[in-house]
């Protein structure tokens, strides 16, 4: 018994010492820490962007925190400390701005669109106009989730387009087998093959985990939605200057290139970018 207690105490001491050392080295190296809160759909793209930003600015250590935009907003409203907030939804950014937590105007740095994904296991690819065929198992996110609302909007847009027939949206929604709590669980259910098809963001369809297991069917541009992703520096940022640089980097050709590779539509039109953002290409 005593032996176990001693072993545990030694183990704990070693861990604590290790943690202490780690903290020491980062302090000694004098790296500034930039805390970025980002929507979970940005996970893959922002990991790559952070790595590139760090190699361009060796003195900066980017700390990423990913969650649903709504959750991040709640965390910020309850006093979480961060330098940059990159949301998948302007409403969350607006709410944080109204709470007086931001510094400067939000900048739209990327646009995400929806795509139809099919299970690789499906015997036959389901085209957009076949979604209303009885027996197809379709999953979308629940309407309160932005991706769920967008999915219904896309179906309405297709409904009013020639060639899809009257009542298309209603007939498609009759094939719904589940309203998932997040867009990522929609993608996962299709990737696992339990659902035949689902409506997700293009960035989800191209993510490393999902892409190999699904077939992507493009949605015509005139029927698709454009989900704007705004980034904003936060009022109590510890590194306000670095925060501005990071947002500038998102808009740089490098940043836009990385976002594009991960399925986002770049904001190439410079008119869409407010002029007061430093680092604006």
């Amino acid at each position: 018994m005593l032996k176990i207690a001693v072993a545990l105490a030694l183990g704990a001491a070693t861990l604590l010492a290790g943690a202490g050392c780690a903290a020491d080295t980062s302090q000694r190296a004098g790296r500034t820490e930039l805390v970025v809160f980002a929507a979970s759909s940005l996970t893959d793209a922002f990991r790559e962007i952070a790595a590139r930003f760090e190699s361009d600015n060796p003195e900066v250590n980017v700390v990423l925190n990913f969650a649903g935009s709504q959750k991040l907003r709640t965390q910020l409203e309850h006093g979480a400390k961060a330098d940059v907030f990159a949301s998948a939804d302007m409403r969350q950014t607006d709410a944080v701005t109204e709470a007086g937590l931001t510094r400067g105007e939000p900048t739209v740095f990327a646009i995400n669109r929806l795509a139809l994904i099919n299970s690789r296991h499906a015997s036959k690819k389901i085209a957009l106009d076949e979604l209303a065929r009885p027996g197809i198992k379709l999953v979308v996110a629940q309407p309160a989730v932005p991706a769920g609302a967008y999915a219904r909007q896309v179906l309405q847009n297709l409904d009013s387009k020639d060639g899809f027939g009257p009542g298309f949206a209603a007939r498609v929604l009759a094939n719904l087998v589940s309203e998932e709590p997040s867009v990522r669980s929609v993608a996962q259910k299709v990737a696992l093959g339990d659902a035949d098809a689902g409506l997700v963001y293009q960035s989800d369809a191209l993510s490393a985990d999902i892409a190999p297991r699904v077939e992507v069917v493009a949605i015509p541009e005139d029927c698709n939605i454009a989900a704007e992703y705004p980034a904003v520096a936060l009022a109590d940022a510890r590194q306000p200057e670095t925060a501005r640089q990071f947002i500038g980097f998102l808009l740089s050709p490098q940043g836009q290139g990385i976002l594009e590779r991960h399925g986002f539509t770049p904001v190439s039109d410079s008119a869409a970018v407010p002029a007061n953002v430093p680092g604006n290409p």
Partner: protein
Amino acid sequence: MFRKVINPSNPWAPAGWAATVLYLVFIGLPVLAMLVRAGQQSDFAASLTSSLTVQALQLSLITSAVSMAVVVVFGTPLAYLLARGDSVALKAVDAVVELPIVLPPVVAGVAMLMAFGRQGIVGPALTGMGIHLPFTAIAVIFAQVFVAAPFYIRAAKLGFQSIGKEFEDVSQTLGVSPWSTFWRLTLPLAAPSILGGLALAWARAISEFGATIMFAGNLTGRTQTMPLAILTAMETDIGSALAMSALLLAGSLAVLAILGVLARRRWEGRL
């Protein structure tokens, strides 16, 4: 009967009372706060009868009733075997049976998807037979049975164990067949334990969430049980979420009351 067990001069008594008050506040306050908020909703009655609530309640009641039927039909002989057998194999079974009690339900959901999903281990065979489990009410029942069965089996086993085998032996030496001994002696004597286990298992089945959303999905009227409907309503309509929560709280209190009555009957049976 137990009133004088703790002597007031016992040095632990003040600490015990302080802890008791703290605990009651700790669990009572959130429950009361929820009820107060639910009561403040002007459309409380409308929320209780909204189609979201009614469909979820119907689905929860039907699926949990079927689940309990399955649990009783298969769980009772299993519990009896566990209570009477003492082989090493049965001891191992005894340990495995209770796994779902300690397993996080969301893990149960992932596991069921890997087994019964369309690409799961037995999924393709099921598909070949035209059976598709995910996103159906049957998947809801699977999830409920998976997580709730051990509560029934454990209680029934303990109930059977408390009726010593000697009683059954005496009955059989008096010429009563083993079958009728079970029905006329063992089962009635073990009934309070069995019903208590059934109440607990039902409560667990009604509250099942993690495995259901993972394996059965979330669709109003098809697989959206009360807990899933509460989660969905929390995003859009807190009034409905509060009304449904109050309804489930009432159900939980009913289960506690049933358990209390059964526990008293069990004691009286002993004395």
